[in-house]
């Protein structure tokens, strides 16, 4: 059953919105800060002495549900020492066109060698450019996106957990 009065109320609702400020965030001009734990582009880490944390164990590749990580390990020798462990990753590649940014690699890694960073602007013109090599993952990423202060978002540890 048509309800004429409600219809006119609807017209009033739409008319009122004209005087409100649009809530659109004009993305390329304005970049909202991502959350500190936002899962973006991966990074590989090194120790303070310059040795790589990755020991080439391939646990990340085993954990990866999208099967996008490829690790080929090699032995460290006294002349050629790359990582802190017995072996190191000779090849470490992540295919970003397959990655689903689930963070399982991060969880699987026993040495915190791989983490997910905050960068999400990783589009390329070619699919080949989306295969990230070890050098690219070790390099400091170009900061394109602001990251919010983690103090604002990290929940304080509850009292019952603090003592343990």
């Amino acid at each position, binding site marked *: 059953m048509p309800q004429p009065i409600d*219809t006119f109320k*609807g*017209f009033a*609702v*739409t*008319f009122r*919105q*004209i005087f*409100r*400020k*649009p*809530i*659109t965030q*004009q993305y390329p001009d304005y970049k909202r800060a991502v959350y500190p734990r936002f899962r973006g582009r991966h990074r590989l880490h090194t120790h303070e002495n310059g040795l790589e944390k990755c020991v080439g164990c391939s646990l990340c590749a085993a954990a990866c549900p999208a099967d996008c990580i490829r690790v080929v390990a090699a032995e460290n020798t006294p002349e050629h020492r790359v990582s802190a462990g017995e072996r190191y990753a000779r090849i470490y590649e992540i295919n970003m066109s397959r990655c689903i940014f689930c963070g399982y690699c991060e969880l699987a890694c026993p040495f915190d060698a791989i983490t997910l960073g905050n960068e999400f602007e990783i589009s390329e013109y070619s699919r080949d450019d989306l295969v990230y090599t070890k050098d690219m993952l070790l390099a400091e990423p170009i900061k394109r996106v602001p990251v919010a202060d983690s103090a604002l978002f990290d929940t304080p540890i509850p009292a019952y957990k603090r003592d343990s």
Partner: protein
Amino acid sequence: MTPVPSVDWWVSVIESLVVINLVLATFAYLTLAERKVMARMQLRYGPNRAGPYGLLQPIADLLKLLFKESFNPAAAIDWLYILAPFLAAFTALATFSVIPFGPGWVIGGVYVPGQVANVSIGLILIFALGSIGIYGFIVGGWASDSKYALLGSMRTCAQLVSYEVSLALSVLGVVIMAESLRLSDIVAAQADTVWYAVPQFVGLVVFLLAGTAETARAPFDLPEAEQELVAGYHTEYGGMRFGLFTMSEYINLITLSALCITLFLGGWHGIVWDGPSWVAPLWFIGKLVVILYVFIWMRTTLPRLRYDQLMRFGWKVLLPVATLNAVVTALLVVWL
């Protein structure tokens, strides 16, 4: 009946060129205005990348459509497929020629009439051209040889044929009161008495509702219900052929709004003050903007009708009301 002064042929040619270009410019910026107004009502900005405030967006859209490949499906019936958008666009543009937008001017000793063609059956001409324009939509959808296009054109056909009856009946009251089908006479009759929006209020409401359905605008936009039919009858069209269909739809809307002004809202006459004769087109444009805004407003506000609701509303509500309005008007005109 006022005598119609004769017009030099070259004046008509120049005037028609000016009017066509003005209508096309109105169409171009109507698309932008629609997107902008709709966006603001939905708390968005709308197009704002091409030029300041997105003012170059229609030009960008036009260039994009022009440079697209003219694709046609292998199974489409070639010449009908190509002809349909031109037919739709031609009839849409031709309809505007009888709409009066001013009292007529004498510029440098040459008489320039207030409309391109001042024909004695202006109103019938508009409906006739509109009916021919429907063929563009039907034939286009059928010749595409696609099920979505065919279903879309069937819906267009059914809806336009159903609501055209109510549309024609709703203006009958105006014709009876003005005792003329010439649009300039109808405008003059309103200036002498009162705008027909007052005595023919029912007619105005029926006209606006049937007109919304006739131009396939929300909430009567079933012919191109995106969720069900991809895009309706122009599913298989791309590039400027699609652009011509869109153009004809928007120009039909402009013409319908202009007709609404002419028949019910005093045409080019001012609200209390007419002003010098050159102000008349400005009054006309001002009223046009208001009516078009109402159409856009309606699109953002009302959800689409279901098909059975559409048919029930058209045949069981609109048509009896329009008929009753025409009959009552006729009886009152005869008896009073």
